[in-house]
């Protein structure tokens, strides 16, 4: 009965039906975070520190509290004390204690009868600050004389004698590095820097929180993961997890940035203080940029040894990353894992530093760590290919990881598709286009390990034979369509007969968020398991009716069939018939599955960009762009292409324009979409895609997560193309027009 044999022959998978939530989203009906309102609701506003680092000497709230319409005001004094570890840091980031740790750190919050009154009220709060020395640059933060963000925050991994802002240290590798480098004909080493970038989701964080004096509460919120919100908000407030019900709205983009909490618990604290009235908290764009979770900035040294024929002999990397004022937030470990994953290396070594700075608490951003690592490593590989006059794709084909390769981070790769992406890129028509003056071509590959994780799911058969699937991973880019396709394929019923609902925390066991490119993999896999459980039950109902052994029944085309002539001669019993009769034949039919999935299939990708540099302005115009990536199996190819294209666009923005700019005063200088400039439609060409399918053996249909990998290769691919066009190697992102122009003017 289990349908192991359907792995390569599909009726629904690989088709491109309209997404189930499409109609709601093109008519304005879909409800996003800020679209929810509750009766008797109040509106919140948050007062934030204008200083990068300051002691909070005194907060006088009396004038604000006296303003007509103000119903509640909270400071850190309204939160429980004694929290430890991650819970403490979540609380401290929600609202500052004795010190503000970054520009934008929340200091107090108000709930009032209207948003206008709440905004007026926070202006009346008087805070006395004692400004402390600050540091926002990762390399400066590592100096012995740098301002100390936290005393005693170093974990046991940090060797004695390192400055206190280094809070974690990594050191791993294998092989004889010295021997490897001495075998090489060319050894090159360079330093690369990337600046912090923001996920830039268009929907600001928004929630409505309601909490009674009895500790029972509700939250409606745009989030990638309702259970994470529940766990974190209740920890910060000292509540029991199950007493808070979190209902996810539609989500207007996340890219990792909505997997955690920032100000959400303030709405609950305000609600409790206002006698349980619901409190709506919507961030402004400026608050989103100043006080949510941009990615880390990085400073990286990479060294590679290569033979004249391009064969790599050894590689090493030292990565320094700051993840804001909170330990454990810089994705240094993942960056190191990604750094050399593309390559077969006899000897490799990684060192990483997690560094504190006076910046906001970093959050995940699409393949956290991988883009920075790719920028450094893939830039250096390109530099060496140029030095040795070798083709960059051929060098990657020569050294590329494949099934059986001992990975740079230890384990041996199972079946992976890097080589296939390189071959597909090499034969793509874009590479035959001849380039003109001031034009350049750049190539780079990238990797993301992908994730499975905690997953709980439920499917239920309706009386008419249609199916409801309840999932815990918010649909951030068309995943309801993928789930419905996998269910219809498994059950053999039409796509339209499946309704997929993203449900609240009371309806399922714990689910991790839609993160780590896990939804189509893990939720999809669990959906297949749940359907298989229901199929088993449906076969049993048919067996009871026919009076034969359930093992003698096959399920296909949406019906139970006798397995062969020996099983008996019965007409197929359809899912509609079983649904209609289920109340009388043993009761409701449903399928459940709950597990923690490991073993997600890795996804590799290769990008090729052609661009033209205007020698007068330094501006790079993307002429054509190619993404080739291994999807394992594309369930809904349009949304797979969409992930490729979206990742590429974000990477292009990070490479060319986007950066957090801090002034000497430690304040963020570009906290708006005018100055934090993400790519617009006129900045980009069509983004060509090739979906490579090397099925992963860890998913019933071969799915590999596809969301993350695509953001890594653009950073180096663009730097490589700029070098091709201008002869100038830029090793510090973003490669903005002034930097390019300066490099061109400087000659050499």
């Amino acid at each position: 009965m289990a349908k192991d044999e359907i792995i390569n022959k599909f009726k629904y998978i690989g088709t491109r039906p309209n997404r189930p939530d499409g109609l709601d989203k093109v008519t304005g009906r879909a409800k996003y975070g800020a679209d929810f309102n509750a009766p008797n609701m109040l509106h919140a506003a948050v007062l934030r520190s204008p200083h990068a680092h300051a002691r909070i000497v005194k907060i006088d709230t009396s004038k604000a509290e006296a303003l007509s319409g103000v119903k509640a005001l909270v400071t850190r004094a309204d939160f429980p004390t004694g929290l430890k570890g991650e819970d403490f840091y979540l609380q401290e980031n929600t609202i500052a204690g004795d010190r503000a740790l970054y520009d934008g750190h929340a200091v107090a919050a108000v709930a009032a009868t209207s948003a206008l009154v709440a905004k007026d009220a926070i202006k009346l709060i008087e805070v006395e600050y004692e400004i402390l020395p600050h540091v926002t640059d990762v390399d400066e933060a590592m100096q012995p004389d740098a301002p100390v963000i936290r005393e005693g925050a170093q974990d046991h991994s940090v060797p004695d004698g390192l400055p206190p802002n280094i809070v974690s240290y990594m050191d791993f590798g294998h092989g004889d590095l010295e021997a490897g480098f001495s075998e090489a004909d060319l050894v090159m080493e360079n330093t690369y820097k990337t600046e912090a970038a923001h996920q830039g989701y268009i929907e600001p964080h928004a929630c409505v929180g309601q909490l009674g004096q009895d500790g029972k509460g509700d939250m409606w919120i745009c989030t990638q993961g309702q259970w994470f919100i529940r766990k974190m908000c209740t920890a910060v407030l000292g509540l029991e997890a199950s007493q808070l019900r979190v209902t996810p709205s539609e989500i207007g983009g996340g890219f990792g940035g909505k997997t955690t909490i920032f100000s959400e618990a303030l709405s609950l604290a305000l609600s409790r203080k206002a006698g349980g009235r619901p409190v709506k908290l919507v961030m402004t764009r400026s608050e989103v940029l100043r006080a949510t979770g941009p990615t880390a900035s990085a400073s990286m040294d990479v060294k590679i040894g290569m033979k004249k024929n391009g064969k790599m002999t050894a590689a090493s990397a030292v990565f320094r990353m700051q993840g804001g004022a909170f330990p454990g937030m810089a994705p240094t470990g993942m960056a190191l894992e990604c750094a050399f994953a593309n390559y077969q290396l006899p000897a490799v070594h990684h060192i990483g530093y997690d560094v504190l700075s006076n910046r906001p608490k970093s959050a995940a951003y699409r393949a956290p760590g991988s883009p920075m690592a790719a920028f450094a490593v893939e830039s250096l590989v390109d530099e060496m290919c140029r030095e040795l006059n070798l083709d960059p794709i051929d060098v990657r084909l020569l050294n590329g990881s494949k099934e059986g390769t001992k990975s740079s981070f230890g384990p041996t790769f199972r079946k992976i598709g890097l080589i296939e992406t390189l071959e597909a890129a090499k034969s793509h028509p874009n590479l035959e286009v001849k380039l003109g003056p001031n034009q350049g071509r750049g190539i780079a590959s990238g990797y993301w390990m992908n994730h499975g994780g905690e997953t709980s799911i439920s499917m239920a058969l309706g009386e008419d034979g249609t199916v409801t699937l309840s999932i815990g991973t918010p649909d951030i880019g068309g995943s309801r369509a993928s789930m419905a396709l996998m269910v219809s394929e498994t059950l053999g019923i039409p796509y339209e007969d499946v309704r997929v609902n993203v449900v609240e925390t009371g309806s399922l066991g714990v689910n991790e968020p839609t993160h780590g490119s896990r939804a189509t993999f893990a939720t999809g896999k669990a959906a297949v398991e749940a359907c298989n459980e229901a199929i088993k039950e449906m076969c049993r109902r048919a067996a009871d009716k026919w009076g034969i052994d359930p093992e003698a029944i096959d399920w296909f085309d949406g019906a139970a069939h006798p397995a062969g002539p020996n099983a008996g001669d019965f007409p197929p019993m359809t899912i509609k018939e079983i649904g209609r009769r289920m109340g009388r034949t043993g009761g409701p039919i449903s399928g459940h599955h709950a597990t923690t999935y490991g073993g997600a299939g890795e996804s590799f990708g290769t990008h090729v960009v052609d661009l033209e540099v205007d020698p007068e302005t330094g501006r790079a115009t993307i002429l054509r762009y190619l993404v080739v990536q291994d999807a394992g199996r594309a369930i809904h190819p349009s949304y797979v292409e969409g992930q490729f294209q979206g990742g590429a666009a974000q990477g292009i923005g990070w490479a060319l324009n986007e950066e957090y700019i801090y002034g000497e005063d430690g304040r963020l200088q570009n906290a708006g979409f005018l100055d934090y400039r993400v790519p617009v439609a006129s900045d980009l060409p069509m983004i060509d895609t090739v979906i490579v399918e090397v099925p992963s053996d860890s998913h019933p249909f071969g799915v590999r997560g596809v969301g993350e990998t695509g953001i890594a290769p653009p950073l180096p691919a663009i730097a490589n193309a700029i070098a091709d066009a201008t002869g100038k190697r830029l090793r510090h992102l973003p490669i903005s027009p002034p930097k390019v122009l300066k490099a061109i003017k400087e000659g050499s």
Partner: protein
Amino acid sequence: MSNMHVTAKINGDETEFLCDPRETLLDVLRDRLNLTGTKEGCGTGDCGACTVTIDDRLVCSCLMLGVEASGKSIETIEGMAKGDTLHPLQKKFVEHAALQCGICTPGILVAAKNLLEKNPDPNEEQVRYWLAGNLCRCTGYDKIIRAVLDAAKEMRGTS
């Protein structure tokens, strides 16, 4: 501050509302009239998620006060489909998978409709520049541009 009384035509219907003089048209649409299809992404006119038309002219509703709408004719995403018939752009956006999260979609649809009313046969570059004020962070714009061009073709009757 006392509220002001405003009358405007919204999606063809005469509509009255009260608003604080400091409230933006976007606030009025979303919070006073419950027309939440128009989104707020930035509040500073940089992202285009709040795009509506005022007397057939594209406007970021976050940059206009509610009281300024007096006597005007406003079209929002809620007025785009005629009854149960979707506008060709709405249909093509779903068919082309031109949305991922969908938060920018209402603004982009309103802006694209306005383009096709002014220029029924735009080329790719014209679509890209017309939509340059509407940020999309998910799609890289590729499928959005294709959907607009395909809808234009269908509306010209040449598909």
